[in-house]
């Protein structure tokens, strides 16, 4: 390419670039195809895997969470943002969590706590707009469960008593069956003995 070739070739490439931007311009103006999402006026559709602060799952059958205060999540948390305590509750055998706090300002949403939870009672909440107004941004995970705790304990007691009764009944039944079997065996043995004696 000579001098003029360079000049006109370069000019042509500029024009082709300008045709691209003009095309985009007319697309936006005519077809109203702007890609902007007008955030406070419209919200994005949250993905199924969306991660926000962790929360306790409310199970349908018990109408409460299933946290047994094993502290596995507190131990695994890389940012040490989970604080929980709990243990034996009066009246039921099952251990329950008494305090479950999480400092969302520290959380890095890695999800390790969800992985280690033995009862699978943790999940991500789907809150999109969150802001902390303190450096200390504590979330009380038990807030929505407190009112139901008594109810849960009562229910759990019934369940446990029922379970205990069932277990007892089962144990007794098993015992009976065992005795019956023993007896039958003994009878058989006696029979055999007598037969042997006879022969």
């Amino acid at each position: 390419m000579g001098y003029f070739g360079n000049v006109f070739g370069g000019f042509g490439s500029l024009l082709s670039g300008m045709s691209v931007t003009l095309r985009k311009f007319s697309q936006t103006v005519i077809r109203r195809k702007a890609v902007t999402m007008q955030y406070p006026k419209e919200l994005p559709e949250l993905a199924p895997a969306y991660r926000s602060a962790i929360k306790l799952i409310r199970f349908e059958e018990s109408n409460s969470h299933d946290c047994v205060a094993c502290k596995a999540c507190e131990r695994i948390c890389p940012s040490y943002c989970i604080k929980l305590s709990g243990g034996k509750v009066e009246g039921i055998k099952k251990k329950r969590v008494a305090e479950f706090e999480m400092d969302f300002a520290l959380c890095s949403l890695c999800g390790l706590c969800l992985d280690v939870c033995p009862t699978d009672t943790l999940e991500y909440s789907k809150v999109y707009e969150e802001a902390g107004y303190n450096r200390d941004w504590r979330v009380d995970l038990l807030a929505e469960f407190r009112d139901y705790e008594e109810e849960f304990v009562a229910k759990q007691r019934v369940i446990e008593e029922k379970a205990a009764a069932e277990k007892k009944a089962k144990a007794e039944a098993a015992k009976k069956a065992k005795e019956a079997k023993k007896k039958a065996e003994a009878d058989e043995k006696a029979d055999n003995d007598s037969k042997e004696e006879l022969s």
Partner: protein
Amino acid sequence: MSSDSQASEGEVYSLNMGPQHPSMHGVLRLLLDLRGEEVIRAKPVIGYSHRAHEKMAENRNTLQFLPNTSRVDYLSGMIYNLGYCQAIEKLLGIDVPERAIYIRVIVNELNRIASHLLWFGTFLLDLGGITPFLYSFDDREEILDILDQVTGSRLTYCYGRFGGVTWDVDETFLTRATAFLARIRERLHMYKQLVTDNVILRERCTGVGVVSEALAKSYGVTGPSLRASGVAYDVRKAEPYGGYDRFDFEVPVLHEGDTMARFHIRIREIEESCKIIEQAIEAIPEGEILPKKMPKRFKLPEGEYYFAVESARGHFGMYIVGDGSDIPVKLKLRTPSFSNLSAMPETLAGTMLADTIAIVGSIDVVMPEIDR
């Protein structure tokens, strides 16, 4: 430097570029000695975003270090996150289910494209082209949305687990990814028309900032910057990991070593990544995403181990020293940007001020990755 030597060089003055400067990506600080607009010496100063990731690794167990990995290089967080998982898996002999291998390849390559697109945009922004920057961010946004579907985060993914991944991909994800491939191919054509063919860009980049093969090798430059200097080194081919040997893709190589070559290499790598994703979507099997049997604690055997993956910027290596417990004695991260940047003083000397911006932009440094 004494005033005598300054006087002998003529009207030399120093310009302190960064750490707060519109085109110093992140917090790079360049101390430039200038004669007029000509750069005589350039000295990169690093350390403005040191977060002690390596020290943190020595104080927590292997699993707890997972969220840190994607924060080393936030632009290709997925590659770092999964790379760390792969390192530990190889060390402990954990078998990864087939489906998880394919999912990992897909998200890795999507992340690589996203990183290259961001580089493309910011590089053009450095050269003064604002519109291509927004177009490429539009494309990148699509990738982030797709990855958000499965990982729940947009940049600092903590998607990998030892032995697999946290969330299974569904049909929607795969169709969206396929649709994205069609879209990005069409857009690449548009970028060629708008940017690559543009005479101003060609004038700005061709023959500027040549990194010779010898210089690149002596400083340990890796990734697209090395491949633009004529060395066909890609960890995915050289030491295949994570199932990359199953896919058919090329390692693009150019020999010019200039800014334009680095530009072309990355564009072609986007195309190659598209090819890999296409094959992976085609061949993805059904099945589990995490192995059934897993050790409860990931205890590192005694000894020293090294594992490397190909990040969007080059050879990312992890040097792990174990002592039998599940807390590493030492976890050294070999990050590509550091070596790539260290070749800069020699490359920048003798260029124009405007070229300095273009060259530093073209090697695609991520400062938090250098400082760690």
